[in-house]
């Protein structure tokens, strides 16, 4: 192969369309006779529905229809359970999934009660204001601990309490090692909620054609194929009658894979019923209630260490807030439970969690999907233990890393993909060393920090590790074909929300076929083009769909070679693919272009022989038996003003291992985006609910997302331990940037402030909260926190 595409910082194929406004987003879909929908959403977090009067709305000008739960008839059904509980012994799970429109009860602020469809969105919203709802407010359950007390108001009447699940996973015998530990350290850790804040909110447009008997749905979903399959089932159609298109989507981050949102269930049904296309676009404020959120957990954790700072075991009991419903099963808390183990050797582990219903919006994965919590708990325990042992924070990690000989490493518990938590490969020490070298860790501690402290400045360093289970099954597929114009067409089922699939998949295919990356046209997220697959989640697009693209391209390569060998009457082994053509290596003048071959492969006369197929096309699937475990180290130097508690990130370094890198530019972009999310999560973004379940900061005026001034330049580098679980050797990277940021902030802030009483055991922080913590820790300084032990 003459030119290598894999691993190169190729400019993204999709950027021209995105930058020139040619990319289609759901709101760009305009159809003749299209109606617009608006939803009436509950102002109350917990209430009984007594009466809904929509007569005023129905009579409003421009209104085509108004629907309440009652109007849906048999179509009203609770949503599916997306992920059933993993096969863990003694596991308890209570299902309560969301409904299209509230019928008897309201369970969170923003839950939809009625939908109005009108000529314009303005008219629809005006009519929504005319709906009269009589509710009987009930006491709300907001706090996860309060949810489980004996007389707590019950959110789901069919259940005996607000407990959604109870899971224990265990390896070894923690109690036994506890008795011989040199150091036992236990703390309570809090992690609170935020939103994903994707730039594009959700939206659905549906169009039913009675003439063709086909339903077309444009949806911002991360999982177009499961949406198509589910809609067909709900609407009594064949799957082939439904086409779901997830065009360009402005950020997914997890919430857009929730299935099914009420709007996804209702808009297609309404379009069929009215025989007119219907559009609904979520506004920003709706997005704060109607799109899923994440991260409320409370952990009571203990670590046992020997005198050398080696981990003997960890004991963790936590509560996970699933919000009003639990359609996503246990994915998030299982991720927390598993990811806590991190890159470390933890011989004994006891982990128990309870999932709790609360009167808050639904929780489903948001970039990191529970991994943040596990990483935060473990990294904090190690930091606090290092402090007790007079050891450096990087040193305690060094001593506990799994070594390259430990792989594959079985943690002996079950992961979110139902398979045992087995790390495929990794090498953690080089990443730590590289990150430490990049940020100048040792000299910062020995020279720079003392100098800055002498100047009265509060500058600290942090360095943390994490792993990220990525690229899980079940499978994805791709179809690759050489077109008559010589270009290569790739279709795969995953949707794209900014990950650069149009380029990285093209690179994989270009590499196999010897064409230029820009000559490979990729289509994602359109069930009309490819209709097998699951979706874009769990950092799996590149790993699973990417390997499917590779397999399909390899099969096409085989067909190209076979046909060319036949036409040129030479052996396949004498041929090479380059520049969009096949040529004889010994006589490059003897060449056949891909276009000419494509025409020959689809003849108008003669006969396609038995065992042959027309065209230069192949479809292939890839289903990894297990996920691949990515990992990394983040390091940061941060300055705090102890009087205002404002922070300034002076350096931010990420060294990441996502196995073989397809495109370093795209990987860097993913990491930078993740870090921005992580910084928001660590220090700015927190949803504020009052005791009645009212969300008090449902706008970007009050909910602070980091802006360009808060996000520093991120210096990144890679280490590569290829995954043995897939032919390309790649691992996912989509969530990596966001995962360890909270833990990193905590360590760096403690180091910068150097207050003996200051322990950061909660995230998100904020300048306000940090100010309080500083005040609580008192003003005594000089506690000699020791970074002395650097080896």
């Amino acid at each position: 192969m003459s030119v290598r595409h894999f691993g190169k910082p190729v400019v993204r194929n999709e950027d021209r369309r995105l930058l020139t406004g040619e990319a289609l987003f759901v709101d760009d879909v305009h159809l003749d006779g299209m109606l617009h929908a608006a939803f009436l959403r509950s102002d109350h977090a917990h209430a009984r529905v007594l009466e809904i009067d929509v007569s005023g709305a129905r009579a409003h000008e421009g209104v085509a229809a108004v629907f309440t739960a009652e109007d849906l008839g048999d179509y009203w059904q609770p949503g599916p359970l997306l992920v059933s509980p993993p096969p863990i012994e003694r596991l308890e799970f209570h299902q309560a999934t969301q409904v299209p429109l509230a019928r008897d009860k309201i369970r969170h602020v923003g839950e939809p009660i009625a939908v109005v469809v009108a000529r314009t969105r303005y008219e629809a919203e005006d009519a929504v204001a005319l709906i009269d709802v009589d509710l009987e407010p009930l006491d709300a359950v907001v706090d996860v601990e309060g949810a489980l007390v004996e007389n707590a108001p019950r959110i789901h009447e069919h259940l005996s309490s607000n407990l959604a699940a109870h899971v224990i996973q265990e390896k070894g015998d923690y109690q036994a090692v506890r008795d011989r530990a040199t150091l036992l350290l236990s703390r309570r850790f809090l992690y609170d909620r935020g939103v994903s804040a994707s730039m594009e909110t959700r939206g659905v447009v549906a169009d039913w054609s009675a003439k063709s008997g086909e339903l077309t749905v444009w949806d911002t979903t991360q999982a177009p194929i499961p949406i198509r399959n589910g809609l067909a089932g709900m609407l009594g159609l064949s799957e082939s009658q439904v086409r779901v298109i997830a065009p360009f989507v402005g950020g997914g981050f997890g919430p857009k894979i929730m299935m099914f949102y009420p709007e996804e269930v209702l808009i297609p049904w309404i379009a069929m019923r009215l025989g007119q296309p219907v559009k609904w676009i979520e506004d920003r404020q709706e997005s704060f209630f109607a799109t899923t959120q994440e991260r409320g957990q409370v952990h009571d954790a203990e670590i046992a260490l020997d005198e050398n700072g080696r981990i003997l075991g960890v004991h963790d009991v936590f509560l996970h807030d699933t919000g009003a419903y639990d359609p996503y099963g246990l994915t998030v808390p299982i991720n927390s439970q598993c990811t806590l183990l991190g890159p470390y050797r933890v011989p004994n582990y006891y982990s128990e969690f309870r999932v709790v219903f609360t009167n808050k919006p639904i929780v489903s994965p948001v970039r990191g999907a529970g991994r943040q919590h596990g990483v935060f708990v473990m990294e904090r325990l190690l930091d606090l233990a290092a402090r007790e042992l007079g050891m450096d924070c990087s040193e305690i990690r060094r001593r506990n890393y799994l070594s390259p000989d430990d792989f594959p490493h079985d943690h002996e518990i079950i992961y979110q993909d139902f398979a045992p938590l087995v790390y495929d490969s990794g090498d953690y020490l080089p990443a730590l060393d590289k990150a430490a070298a990049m940020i100048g860790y040792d000299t910062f501690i020995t020279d720079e920090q003392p100098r800055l402290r002498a100047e009265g400045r509060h500058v600290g360093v942090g360095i943390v590790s994490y792993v990220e289970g990525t690229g899980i099954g079940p499978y994805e597929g791709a179809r690759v074909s050489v077109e008559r114009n010589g270009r290569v067409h790739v279709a795969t089922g995953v949707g794209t929300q900014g990950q650069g699939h149009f380029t990285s998949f093209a690179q994989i295919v270009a590499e196999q076929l010897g064409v230029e990356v820009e000559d490979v046209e990729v289509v994602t997220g359109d069930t009309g083009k490819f209709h097998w697959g699951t979706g874009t989640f769990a950092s799996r697009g590149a790993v699973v769909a990417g390997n499917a693209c590779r397999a399909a391209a390899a099969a096409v390569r085989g067909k190209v070679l076979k046909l060319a060998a036949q036409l040129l009457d030479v052996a396949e082994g004498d041929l090479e693919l380059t520049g969009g053509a096949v040529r004889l290596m010994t006589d490059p003048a003897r060449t056949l272009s891909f276009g000419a071959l494509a025409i020959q492969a689809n003849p108008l006369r003669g006969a396609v022989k038995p065992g042959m197929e027309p065209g230069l096309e192949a479809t292939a699937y890839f289903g990894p038996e297990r996920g691949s475990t990515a990992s990394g180290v983040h390091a940061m130097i941060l300055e705090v003003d102890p009087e205002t508690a404002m922070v300034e990130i002076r350096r931010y370094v990420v060294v990441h291992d996502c196995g073989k890198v397809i495109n370093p530019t795209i990987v860097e972009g993913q990491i930078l985006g993740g870090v921005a999310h992580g910084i928001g999560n660590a220090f700015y973004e927190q949803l504020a609910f009052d005791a009645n379940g009212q969300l008090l900061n449902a706008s970007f005026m009050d909910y602070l997302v980091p802006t360009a001034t808060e996000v520093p330049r991120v210096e990144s580098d890679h280490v590569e331990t290829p995954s043995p679980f897939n032919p390309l050797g790649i691992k996912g990277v989509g969530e990596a940037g966001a995962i360890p940021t909270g833990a990193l902030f905590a360590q760096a802030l403690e180091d910068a402030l150097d207050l003996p009483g200051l322990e950061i055991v909660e995230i998100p922080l904020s300048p306000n909260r940090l100010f309080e913590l500083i005040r609580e820790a008192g003003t005594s300084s000089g506690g000699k926190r020791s970074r002395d032990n650097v080896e």
Partner: protein
Amino acid sequence: MEIESEFVFDGPRDTVWRLLHDPAVLAKALPGTRRFERTSEDQYEGEMEVSVGPVTAASFSVKIELTDKVSSERFTMLVDGRGNAGFTKGAARVQLLDHELDRTLMRYRAELQVGGRIAAVGQRLLDSVGKSMTRQGLEAINHHLQGREPPRRALIPRPAALALGAILLLLLLLAVLL
């Protein structure tokens, strides 16, 4: 939210008591009031239009019930306000005490739940706007007491106040307005 404060009226307790129960006075004192009337001995109903920050011209219907009444001394207002931008629900306890120079000291304490869009996007303004609007309403009543018309205030954005029976003002203000 909780609001606790006091206000001195330039008049005796029984006069203040009367004004606080006169819907016409209250309606005038509250800028956003479109309608405010007494529906029975201790019940009032009104319609108001409120703006809080980004929530503009939201209309609310408000019901107020007075309980625990001891004439010229104290009462409790139960407030239930609903509109398309949210709701407010709660109670305010009001106490009137003699004050020097034949004046009246009013102490009030309100506990209100505020929900919906007003709480979600107007939260930052609730407290300060609520307090200042309450004050404004009370001052308007006081001006009335002094035999003057309530002055026109243009400086503060005028969310409407909710109406209230006596402290309806408060509540409303607080509540809805806020």
